[in-house]
């Protein structure tokens, strides 16, 4: 308990405290004096752009992961035999055993101009389709690895286990008797899915989306390794506290995702995601 308060919340509090200081531009020293001027700096077009870009990416990665994860989780929870369930479960979590950096660099190679994806498009003589996709402004770029689309793919892959596991857990918790009861009361398989399974899996979806959303918000490795050079929140924080030595601005910037997550959780609660907990 003491540990939680001191180490966990204490560091967050120190972050909050730092965000109310400011950096003296001439001396480059942090002035420990209460001010809101650091927060004001967040509202420049550049920084707002960073917030908007990161939140949008987090949102579409979350949606894509829900779409990919749900059928997988559903299969594992409902149809897989106990034996294959174990193997599938290991398969889902296996990537988490290896280094995150290695996996990001693997994707960098896969998505590169000379990488396997572009090689495949070439093989079938449909390179023009890839070029067409990459020429779309705001998602395209000179190659997949240097485009927001590539980042999106890597993000979806990296956070996918964090979406599958909670959804699967939620689905496993639906007792068989509830499905029988629904069927007994006249519902066919589709109606049972819609009225019983889906609502009961919803808390799992929300739990998973909290992971994918917040992890994307704070990540700085993928935007640095892949994509174009436009900043994401994580990168901005990294460079402010590192090279620029502007700890107060980095702290203020970090409060951005915190606020976004609080809003997100409030919406989730409103949608009834925590009712069944």
């Amino acid at each position, binding site marked *: 308990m003491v540990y939680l308060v001191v180490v966990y919340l204490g560091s967050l509090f120190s972050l909050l405290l730092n965000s109310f200081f400011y950096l003296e531009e001439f001396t480059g020293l942090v002035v420990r004096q209460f001010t809101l001027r650091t927060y004001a700096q967040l509202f420049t077009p550049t920084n707002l752009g960073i917030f908007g870009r990161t939140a949008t990416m987090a949102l579409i990665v979350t949606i894509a992961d829900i779409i990919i994860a749900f059928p997988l989780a559903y299969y594992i929870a409902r149809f897989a035999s106990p034996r294959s369930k174990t193997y599938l479960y290991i398969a889902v979590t296996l990537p988490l055993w290896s280094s995150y950096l290695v996996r990001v660099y693997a994707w960098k190679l896969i998505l590169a101009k000379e990488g396997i994806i572009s090689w495949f498009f070439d093989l079938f003589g449909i390179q023009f389709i890839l070029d067409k996709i990459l020429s779309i402004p705001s998602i395209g770029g000179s190659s997949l690895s240097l485009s927001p689309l590539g980042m999106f793919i890597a993000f979806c892959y990296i956070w996918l286990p964090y979406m599958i596991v909670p959804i699967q857990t939620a689905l496993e918790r639906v007792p068989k008797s*509830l499905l029988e009861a*629904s069927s007994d009361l006249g519902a066919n398989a589709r109606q049972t899915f819609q009225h019983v399974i889906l609502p009961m899996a919803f808390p799992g979806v929300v739990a998973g989306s909290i992971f994918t959303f917040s992890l994307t918000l704070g990540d700085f490795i993928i935007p640095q390794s892949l994509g174009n050079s436009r900043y994401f929140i994580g990168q901005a924080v990294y460079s402010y506290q590192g090279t620029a030595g502007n700890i107060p601005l980095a702290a203020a910037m970090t409060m951005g995702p915190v606020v976004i997550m609080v809003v997100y959780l409030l919406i989730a609660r409103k949608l009834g995601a925590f009712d069944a907990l």
Partner: protein
Amino acid sequence: MTAPAIRFEQVSRHFGEVKAVDNVDLEIHDGEFFSMLGPSGSGKTTCLRMIAGFDRPTSGHIFLYGQDVSDLPPYERNVNTVFQDYALFPHMTVEDNVAYGLMIKGIAKETRKKRVDEMLELVRLPKFGSRKPSQLSGGQRQRVALARALINHPKVLLLDEPLGALDLKLRQQMQVELKSIQQRVGITFIFVTHDQEEALTMSDRIAVFNEGKIVQVGTPPEIYESPASPFVAGFVGTSNLISGEVAKRLTGSEQMFSVRPEKIRLSFANDRPETDMISVDGIVRDVIYLGLFTRYLVEVEDGADLVVIEQNLKTTSMDVLSAKGQKVRLHWHKDHISHVGA
């Protein structure tokens, strides 16, 4: 004459090598309160699940009012189930739970609301509509489950040990209530239980299951007073089973017979046997005082142990407990023995 509510025609259900239900024939009449009684693993629940459609017979046919439903999915059968764990939908209010069947059928909201209110009235839970199942007690959930099933006017209502999770007082109260609801709605109830007292209390007829087969079907008095086999005699109530030499000496035949503990009178004096009474001497080996009555374990000559139950009309605990180790004479009327098979 209408077709029976449920008819089993040589129904079997095998799980691999295990014959959960083995060649069962059965007829359940329209409007009857029918109990399936048996120990766990005797096949009664599997029979119920086959009527509901959750399980299909390996062979044989099941008819619902003359229609062969053996291969229909649950949602195409006009039967409803009250589950052992109630299986209420936790994410819905009581009202939505009860209205579920009607909602699936696409019945208008206003009609739904009206019928839900009627149903909650029937199970004596008005004003509970907006609660969640987690906010209800066991007995209340039980009633909601009943309302949710009955609102669809099923032809047959299936109840899978629905009172198992309730405490004794509540269970006895629900037994009376279930019976009165059944008489009011006039629907055929099929009630699965392993509790013989419950079956005797509520049923019009009882089927006793053992090892996948029905060993006896009859009214509660028939089952209790004339058990068809040693198993039934032992499972429904307590019985003293006597066979062999002792039986021959007492009844003149070696055939096994049973006599209920409450039919035996116990006396300390060596009184002369009356006409039509069977008497045997023994020694009281154990006395269990149970307040309302006392249970004696008496060892009679030739080594057989008989259980005797006597109501504590005039005796106190002091009196009965002092009987231990004493010689006694047991009497019972010869009409109170029933010969059982084997």
